[in-house]
């Protein structure tokens, strides 16, 4: 809960300093090249997308007022809002086409949305009128609006070439930027949704300890991505308030389903049964989170309801492991200090697995290359995922051709079922099909999703209007509704 003081009247003016985990030279100003939270926040302040994601990760209109398709989900029409760019020009269909073309430019491989929007056929897409744009896909896809809400899909001005002079339709205008340090933006008075209350927005970069010190020491009013321990300390005082988006990300162990011993479904199940999820949540997440049920996306659109919670059952696990002949064997778990809690959870999980007579040896790899290494190295490892629509998660990680298929889950029938679901234009039918797929994953797949960490943001007491929202959704890191009391 955000626990806002009731009845405070929004007041205009003031400067808000928000601190994010910095990326040093990695930080970029180009809205189509981004990957860090601090980049996302920066782009969100200045740019907008056609579509955004709601709190349940369902597409909601943004620059596109509304949309519909030809009934086969192949040709999509988006009606644009009456929005104004920072330079005073109105948003038009041409801007949208230019932006999407810029994303797809094959000469610049680092435009992140390139692969997710690969299905878009830009040659056949066109501006119907200044406020209507028609986008044609190469193959039908009922999830297309969600793809337009993915990262790196911001709408820029037609002819935008110089990312160092950002011009968007967002609530704040660019003032200055230093990679790895700060960006300053000022209120854009002609914002279509009504000008922001803040006069000035500073987005700063710093690591966790500095963020904590800054928000406690009054050098910042907003600190993103805080640790549970900090939350515990901060809640003892009065100066800082924690805004927690409950259970909005996922922590898991991933097993490679095509490699021994995890090519044996019994072993996979045994490991799922061995995880003491509550203890993992209590220790690794310091209690700030919910236990997981071996599935991604609890509470999101398409999450199958009514699944029983997987409980710990050491006896059953022992039986399965004995059957698989794994007792007293040693398996390596490949981890790295790549993300908070990885090494800790691996270490703890090793203790839990040991209770069933299997030794899990913790091997630590290089933090920076971990996500790539994990694709090929280790039979079991750590995995986390931020908030994203469930179909996207499946696309990215669980199809035969998925680029980040860390569990090596490659089943043609699964791929086919997913393709069939994606073209299904009826939402309920689609949801049912997705639900089936997810149950398969939960029972048979290689993901031990043990915890759903809360996403924690710290704000100083005078900051009002900060909503608890999962990352990557519309209300997350949004400063046009925030004011200083």
């Amino acid at each position, binding site marked *: 809960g955000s626990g806002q003081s009731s009845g405070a009247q929004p007041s205009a003016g003031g400067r808000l*300093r928000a*601190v994010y985990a*910095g990326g*040093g*030279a*990695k*930080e*970029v100003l180009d809205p189509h090249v981004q*990957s860090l939270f601090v980049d996302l926040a920066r782009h969100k302040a200045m740019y907008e997308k056609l579509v955004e994601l709601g709190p349940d990760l369902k597409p909601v209109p943004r620059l596109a007022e509304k949309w519909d398709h030809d009934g086969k989900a192949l040709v999509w029409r988006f009606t644009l809002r009456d929005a104004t760019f920072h330079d005073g020009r109105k948003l038009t269909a041409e801007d949208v086409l230019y932006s999407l073309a810029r994303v797809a430019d*094959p000469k610049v*491989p*680092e435009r*992140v949305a*390139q*692969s997710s929007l690969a299905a878009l056929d830009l040659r056949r897409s066109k501006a119907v009128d200044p406020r209507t744009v028609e986008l044609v896909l190469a193959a039908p896809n009922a999830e297309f609006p969600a793809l337009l809400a993915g*990262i*790196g899909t911001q709408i820029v001005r037609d002819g935008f070439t110089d990312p160092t002079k950002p011009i968007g339709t967002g609530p704040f205008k660019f003032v200055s930027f*230093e*990679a*790895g*340090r*700060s960006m300053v933006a000022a209120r854009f008075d002609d914002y279509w949704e009504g000008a922001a209350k803040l006069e000035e927005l*500073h987005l*700063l*970069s*710093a*690591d966790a*300890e*500095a*963020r904590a*010190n*800054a928000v*406690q*020491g*009054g*050098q*910042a009013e907003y600190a993103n991505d805080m640790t549970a321990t900090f939350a515990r300390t901060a809640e003892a005082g009065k100066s800082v308030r924690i805004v927690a988006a409950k259970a909005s990300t996922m922590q898991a162990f991933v097993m490679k389903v095509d490699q021994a011993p995890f090519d044996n479904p019994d072993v996979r199940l045994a490991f799922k049964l061995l995880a003491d999820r509550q203890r993992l949540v209590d220790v690794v997440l310091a209690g700030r989170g919910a236990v997981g049920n071996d599935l991604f996306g609890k509470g999101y659109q398409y999450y199958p309801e009514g699944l029983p919670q997987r409980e710990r059952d050491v006896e059953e696990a022992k039986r399965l492991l004995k059957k698989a002949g794994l007792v007293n064997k040693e398996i390596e778990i490949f981890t790295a200090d790549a993300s908070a809690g990885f090494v800790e959870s691996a270490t703890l999980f090793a203790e839990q697995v040991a209770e069933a007579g299997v030794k899990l040896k913790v091997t630590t790899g*290089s*933090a*920076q*290359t*971990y*996500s*790539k*290494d994990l694709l090929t190295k280790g039979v079991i490892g750590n995995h986390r995922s931020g908030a994203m629509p469930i179909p996207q998660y499946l696309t*990215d990680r669980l199809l035969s051709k998925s*680029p*980040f298929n860390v569990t090596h889950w490659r089943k043609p029938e699964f791929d086919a079922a997913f393709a069939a679901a994606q073209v299904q234009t009826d939402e309920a039918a689609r949801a049912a099909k997705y639900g089936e797929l997810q149950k398969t994953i939960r029972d048979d797949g290689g993901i031990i999703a043990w915890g759903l960490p809360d996403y924690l943001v710290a704000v100083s007491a005078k900051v009002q209007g900060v909503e608890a929202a999962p990352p990557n959704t519309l209300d997350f890191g949004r400063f046009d509704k925030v004011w200083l009391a």
Partner: protein
Amino acid sequence: MRSYAAGRAALAVVQLAVLSVLVFALTSLLPGDAADLRFTETLSPEQVERLREQLGLDQPAAERFGHWFGQVLTGDLGTSLISGGPVVDIVRDSVGATLVLTIATLAIVVPLAVALGILMGTRENGRLDRTITSITLALSAIPDFVIAVVLVAVFSLKLGWLPATWIGGDLLTSPVLLVLPVAVLLGRTVCLLSRQVRAGTINTLNADYITQARRLGVPRRRLLFRHVLPNAAVPGVQELARTGDTLLGGVLVVEAIFAIPGFATALVDAVETRDLPVVQALTLVLAVAALLLNLLADLTCNRLVPRSALLK
């Protein structure tokens, strides 16, 4: 003297060249390259492959080094593999804060260490000497990260007197930002340096020429500042040149704790992201600084005590 300078310069050039080969080799040993690290789980492997080609990382290491070296010879440090911007900018941006930090530290360290060193040296084994010795030894025994954590907890979070981080701060408008970082860096440096000055002072005081100057009626204060100090400073100056490297280790800790976007952080970042041109450039800058510092120290010593250079 001219041949001495020429020899030094030639050695420096060789040192820098060998160093860059070494650094290149060292960083080439690291697993993964900049393309792998550029983005995690946002770019598809196919995109990463294209990127790798674009960055020229698919070429053999020797070729890449040759290319880089040729560029440097023409005075171009190249572009960052990560930000795509000129390396010069990254170097310039990161050097500033660290430079201010170190200069501010040294501006306090040097006079303080000299004063303490002389005070201790003139009273060798006296009460004051033992007292200051104990304090400096104790101070230098506390790791700088412990000092930093404690200082922040007390002066920023508890008392709220001083800013805990450099986040969003500007040195020009709030020089108070320097207080805590400099305080952390001071401890060990002052200790090391003052002990050198102390040793130098004691040595000098025992020298015949000081006894002789006193016997010729040179008064105490003059004796101390005109006769003892220049000689006593020599080991201190040499220590100072060597302190550079030690100091940098401390700077990294301080930069991490106070969120100072400085040189040490940039260097570690660049290593972590395999941004080779940046690593190379930063190392070069550092090596040049170290060499210059040593040269400066030698020249200073030579100026202070002309014979000391000849004795080497």
